[in-house]
C-alpha cells in the first residue's frame, strides 16, 4: 500500500547510485591527472634546486674573490 512512495524513492535511489558511480569515476580520473602532473613537476623541482645551488656557489665564489659588484 505504500507503493507510491516506495516507487518514487527507489527511482531516486537508483539515480543517486548512478550519480555516485559517475562521480567516483571522475574523481579517479582527477587523481590520475594530478599524479601525472606531480611526477612531471618533480624534475622541474630538481632543476630549480640545481640552479639555486649554482647561484649560491657563484655568489660565494664572487664574494671570496672580492669580485662581487653592487647591483646596477
Amino acid at each position, binding site marked *: 500500500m505504500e507503493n507510491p512512495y516506495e516507487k518514487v*524513492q527507489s527511482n*531516486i535511489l537508483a539515480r*543517486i547510485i548512478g550519480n555516485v558511480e559517475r*562521480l567516483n569515476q571522475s574523481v579517479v580520473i582527477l587523481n590520475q591527472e594530478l599524479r601525472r602532473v606531480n*611526477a612531471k613537476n618533480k624534475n622541474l623541482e630538481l632543476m630549480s*634546486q640545481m640552479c639555486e*645551488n649554482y647561484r649560491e656557489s657563484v655568489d*660565494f*665564489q664572487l664574494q671570496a674573490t672580492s669580485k662581487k659588484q653592487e647591483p646596477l
Partner: protein
Amino acid sequence: MGKSEKRRTKKKQSNKQDFVRRCNVNSKKQRGQKTEGALQIETQLAIREGGILLKFCFPSIMEAMSIEQIDQEITLHLQSIDSDLSYCFNKITKDVIPYVTRYGQTCEEITNSSAWLKEMFQQSANVQLVTDQSVESAGQVLEPRASLFPKVDHGTDEFHTAQLLGVAGTGNANDDKDTNRGQFQDQDTEEMTLDSAIEKQRKKRKISLQIHQQFNSSSSASSNSSMEKDISANSSPIRMIAADAETGTETNNKIQGQLANPRTVIHFNSKRD
C-alpha cells in the same frame, strides 16, 4: 514518466493535507472518543477525496499522516542528495579536470624549454638524473669525459672529473670552523645509497666543485695552463694561499696545507631542505 508521477504524488499530498485538516477538526469535536461511526465517516472522507486506503490499517490516523509526512520528507531529502551529487559530478568533470590538464600541459612546456639546463647539469656532474620512476639508474657516475668548460692542460683529467674522494690531507681541515664555506669536508662516499636527498647534495657539491676547480685552477702552484693565465692573480683564494703556504698561515675560507695534492676536494655548505 517520472514527472507525471510527481504530479500525482503532489496532488495526493495536497489532498492528504486537506484530509488532515478535516481530521483534526473532527477529532477536536469528538475529543478522543473515536467510535465506530466516526471511523466510518473518516474512511468515507478518505475514499471521497481519493486518498490513501491505508487509513484502515492504522489504529490512529494521526500517526498515519505523520508517517506520510515523513515519507514525503524522505523523498525530498533523497532528491536533494541526488541533485547535490550530480552537481558535484558536473563540477568536477566540466571545470576541475580540464583545468588540471591545462596546468599539466603548461608545466610540460616549461620542462621542455628548460631541458638544456638539465643536460648541462648532468654532464657537469657526470651523473644521470632520475627522471623516471625507476631508481636503478639513479646516481650512476658515468665515465669521466671532457668537461663543458675550456680544457685546462694539467696533464691529467682528474680535475675535470667529479671525484668525491676523501683525502688523507683533509684531516687538517677539520680544525677550521665548520660554519665557514670552502672548507675541506670528509665526504661520505661510502654512502652510495639511493636516497634522493643525499643524491641532491652530491650533485650540488659536484657542481660547486666543478666551478671552483675551474675558477681556482687546481691546487698546483705551477701555472702552466692558459686558463690559469686568464684568471687574474687575485681571483682565486687558492693562489693566495699557495703564496702563503710557505708561511703556513691558516685563515678562514682558505685551503690549508697540502695544496699540491690533486685529489683535494672543496665542499661548500649547501642549504639542506
